[in-house]
C-alpha cells in the first residue's frame, strides 16, 4: 500500500546517482527486495512509469530480485525458507527465528547510456 512512497524513494536515488555521473539515460534499475518488505512489484512499476515521465529515468525497466526469507531452527539449527504457513522448521517441527535474510530493501545497480 505504500508503493507510491517507495517509488519516490527509488526515483530520487536513481536520479541523484545518474546526475552525479552525468549519464543521459537510465534504462534499467535492479532492486533487491526481501519478501518481508510487503510491497507489490507491479504497483511500483506502475507508479514509476508515471513519476519518471520527463526525467532521465523515463521508460526504465524495473527488475525485482526477490529474496525469500530464511529462518533458523532454534532446536536443530537447520536453515530453511519460511513456510507459507507458520514458522516451524520443516526438519524437526520446532520454532525457527528470522536470520535477517528476507528484509533486503535496496537498489543494487542501474544500467545507463
Amino acid at each position: 500500500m505504500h508503493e507510491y512512497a517507495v517509488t519516490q524513494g527509488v526515483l530520487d536515488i536513481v536520479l541523484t546517482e545518474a546526475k552525479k555521473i552525468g549519464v543521459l539515460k537510465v534504462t534499467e534499475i535492479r532492486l533487491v527486495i526481501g519478501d518481508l518488505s510487503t510491497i507489490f512489484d507491479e504497483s511500483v512499476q506502475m507508479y514509476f512509469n508515471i513519476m519518471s515521465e520527463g526525467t532521465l529515468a523515463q521508460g526504465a525497466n524495473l527488475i525485482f530480485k526477490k529474496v525469500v526469507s530464511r529462518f533458523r531452527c532454534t532446536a536443530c539449527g537447520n536453515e530453511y525458507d519460511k513456510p507459507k504457513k507458520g514458522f516451524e522448521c520443516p526438519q524437526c517441527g520446532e520454532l525457527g527465528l528470522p536470520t535477517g535474510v528476507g528484509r533486503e530493501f535496496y537498489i543494487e545497480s542501474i544500467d545507463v547510456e
Partner: protein
Amino acid sequence: MEIKIMKNIMEANDRLAAENRALFRDRGMTAVNVMASPGSGKTSVIIQVIKSLGAEIDIGVIEGDIATNIDAETIGRLGIPVYQINTGGGCHLDANMIRMAVQNFTLKKRSLLLIENVGNLVCPSTFDLGEEYKLVIASVPEGHDKPYKYTSMFMAADVIILNKKDLMPYIDFDKDSFYKGVRAVNQKTHVFEISCRTGEGVQTFISWLRERVQEGM
C-alpha cells in the same frame, strides 16, 4: 553500462528519522509510535496513558489520520496538546511528517510523545519515525493469526499490547498460537494483555511505560 548503487530505498526517510530521534533524545523526550489495525484501540490506549500518567508526566500527542480530526478532538478534550496530521489518503506516517509536526508544535522537554499512526498493520512498519519505541496493538477480536499474516509489523515491535482481553470468553482466540507467532519473529518484546474498557492489565503496561519515560529524561 552497469553502475553499482547499493543504497537503501528508505534512506531519505531513515535520515530524517535519525534527526528526529536525535532531537527527541536531546530534549529528554520519549517518543512512542503507536501502530495497529483500525479499531484495535490505539486512541483508547492513548487515553488510558493520559489518564494514568497525565498528572505526573508532560504528554503530547501527534494524531495521524487519513482525513478526520475525530481522535484529535477526543484527546484535546483531555487538556493534552495535540497535533493533527492528515495524510490525505496516505496509509502511513513518515519521518518528514513528524519533523514538520515537531516544528509546529511546542513539545516540552522531558516529556512523553505519543504518535498515533494511521490504522494499518502493513505500511507503517516500514517507516521509521525517529521514535524510541514501536508499540504494536493487537486486539482479541482480530484473531490470533495476526503475527503470522503481518510478520514485518510484529518483527518491528518493541512492545506489544493485546487489547480487549475482556472479550476472550466470547471469541475463539487461540492465545498459544498468538504467542507462538509473536515469539517466532520477535523474542525481545514484552506483551501486555489489557482491556481499555474494564481497565484490566492497564496499570502493568503503565508501570512499564513510566520506567521507559524516566529512563529517557
